[in-house]
């Protein structure tokens, strides 16, 4: 029995730290971040960074000095990046285990995933407010406004999918349902939901047009103004991981998850690159919108789309 327990522990630790956990997420996230940067550069007529640039950035930040502002509450200020990283890694594991079809006890409870995906934004807000910088405070207030506007359409869209898959709130059930009756994006409700969720993850990744929380030319770096050295590196790493986790979530919800058997590997890679391409295109063909406009966009239009998607889902389209 004891030996069995140890094997189980080792398996969980392996899943948490190496595959599909921290290490795997960081490496793939870093590479996807390179894809994003390279594509952006090509759109700009620039050459773009080398493949390992995201990792060079992290290494450089890890040897830089970490400064804590005098009037910051140091513990909260330094703890929040670690919290955000942990939450993003756990959410990544919970999404990837069902998405990669790895057998485990966890079947992908959507509610847990939704909560965990909100943690990075919340911790950023807390960290920004703890830093005591007026620019960070402005950034934090924007992030709060953004958070409360995009969470509702996010939930509603997922609700539409839950209705489609016979009221099951487990991710593996959603993927199994898609394997039987075709991917959700192929239906009207799914297509509408896909548009909404792409906008939401654009905001969750704080990319243009929804990057007002760290609008460079207005409030320097907004919520992350005061961070430096290793904490800043952790924040960057969280962004890399989210850049992999959120598209994976979308793929699990709408495109039938990943499949790594035979030629399907190519299809899986194509799916994730396609989502990254969409994100990059949106962020390169739009200016930053104002926070008021963003709230209006999510509260009115995206909620409307999401509600429509629910109605269609109930009707069975």
């Amino acid at each position: 029995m004891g030996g069995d327990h140890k094997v189980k522990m080792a398996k969980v630790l392996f899943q948490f730290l190496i595959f599909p956990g921290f290490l795997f997420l960081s490496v793939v996230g870093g590479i996807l971040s390179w894809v994003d940067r390279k594509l952006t550069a090509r759109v700009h007529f620039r050459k773009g960074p080398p493949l390992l640039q995201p990792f060079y950035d992290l290494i450089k930040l890890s040897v830089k000095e970490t400064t804590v502002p005098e009037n910051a509450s140091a513990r909260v200020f330094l703890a929040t990046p670690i919290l955000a990283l942990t939450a993003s890694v756990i959410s990544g594991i919970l999404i990837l285990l069902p998405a990669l079809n790895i057998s485990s006890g966890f079947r992908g409870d959507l509610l847990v995933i939704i909560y965990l995906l909100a943690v990075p934004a919340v911790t950023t807000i807390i960290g920004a407010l703890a830093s005591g910088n007026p620019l960070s405070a402005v950034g934090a207030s924007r992030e709060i406004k953004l958070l409360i506007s995009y969470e509702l359409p996010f939930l509603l869209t997922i609700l539409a999918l839950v209705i489609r898959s016979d009221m099951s709130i487990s991710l593996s059930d959603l993927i199994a349902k898609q394997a039987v009756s075709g991917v959700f994006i192929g239906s009207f409700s799914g297509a509408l939901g896909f548009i909404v969720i792409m906008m939401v993850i654009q905001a969750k990744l704080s990319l243009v047009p929804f990057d007002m929380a760290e609008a460079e030319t207005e409030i320097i770096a907004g919520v992350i103004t005061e961070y430096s050295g290793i904490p800043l590196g952790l924040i960057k790493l969280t962004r890399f991981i989210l850049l992999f986790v959120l598209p994976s979530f979308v793929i699990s919800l709408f495109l039938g998850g990943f499949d790594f058997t035979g030629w399907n590997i190519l299809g899986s890679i194509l799916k994730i690159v396609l989502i990254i391409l969409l994100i990059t295109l949106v962020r390169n063909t739009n200016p930053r919108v104002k926070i008021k406009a963003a709230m209006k966009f999510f509260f009115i239009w995206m909620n409307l789309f999401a509600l429509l998607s629910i109605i269609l889902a109930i009707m069975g389209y």
Partner: protein
Amino acid sequence: MSNKEVVVPIGPYHPLQEEPEFFKLYCDGEVVKRVVWEAGYNHRGHEKISEGKSFDQSLFLVERICGICSCSHPFAMVNAVEDAGNITNIPVRAKYIRTILGELERIHSHLLWVGLAGHFIGYNTVFMWAWKYREPILDIFEMTCGNRNHYGMFKVGGVRRDIENDDIPEILKVLDKLKPKLNLLIGAVMDDPVIHSRTKGIGILTKEDIREFHALGPTARASGIPIDVRKDDPYAAYNMVKWKVITAEEGDVFAKAAVRLLEMIESVSIIEQCLNGLQKTKNGPIDIKLKEVPAGEGVGHHEAPRGEVFHFVKTNGTNSPERHKIRAPSLMNIPTFRRSCTNQTISDVALILAAVDPCYCCTERLLSVYDWESGKREWTFNDLVKLSHEKTRKIMKRLKKQDV
């Protein structure tokens, strides 16, 4: 939220400004209640240095006031010196070359602004594209003057280097290639609904505001005031070519962008006409051999990309100016923030501050007086302004008495 005002600093070093400059935004939440401008990070004492240099050296000096409008200041200064010395027989070829340089500079400066404005609203694609299209202009500069910036072309009585007639077809080719790119950029900026939502109806300056602050250049023209020295008081070759003053009525950020974008098309047309003029004059002289500048006082203007730049030069028969006064257009344009920034959000204020295309190194003059030994500030900028107002009032009183 507390009712206390929060100060959001833009500066002294900030990604919004390419130069050190300090704006304090007193905010209530996202809304900016008032803005305080602190200048003085860029003061270099050009006027005083210029008074100790010869005219030729002085031209090189004023060229270095600003890297972007580095032909506007020498242009205005040669106009001023020629006015002071009553030098009127400038060769036609020199006039054309001066005009070409002035207009090329307008194009590259406006493209630079469009790119930066794109960057300020987070649209980095526009930023990169506009700066890419700016490159051929800098190449023309390098071809004709030898430098991408700081051209060193102006001298009292003419220009230093000729634009060879053999080079003209190549310049025309570059301009031909530039035109579709400019049209593409204009289309991309003017038709984008998201850009509209960010720029339309924001930072509105009415005609009255413009008159009150004496704003100049595209800032004034975007509010429907067709002020342009090139038309109002033509110099160089501006009365020998056909062009029109671009204006817009709205006075918001979008109108300012539109005016600048459309002005570039006009500039291309002016350059083409000047190049044709050059071809007609064959290879004439490009300067007059000037022995000395007679004593006198003169003013010179040039419509720089940001508005009218004004130089006053007093000569005394020697080879250096006795008094040299410079006033750049940004000095009039920047204070319009008092009218356009109040009760706007921080995002808008950042854009509005940038919309007048401020150039701080052009603007900054004497700002505060320190005691050398104790390092204590004796006179601040506001004190000096007060002092100058008092003096003006005194002079006005005296003049009124004389009138009676």
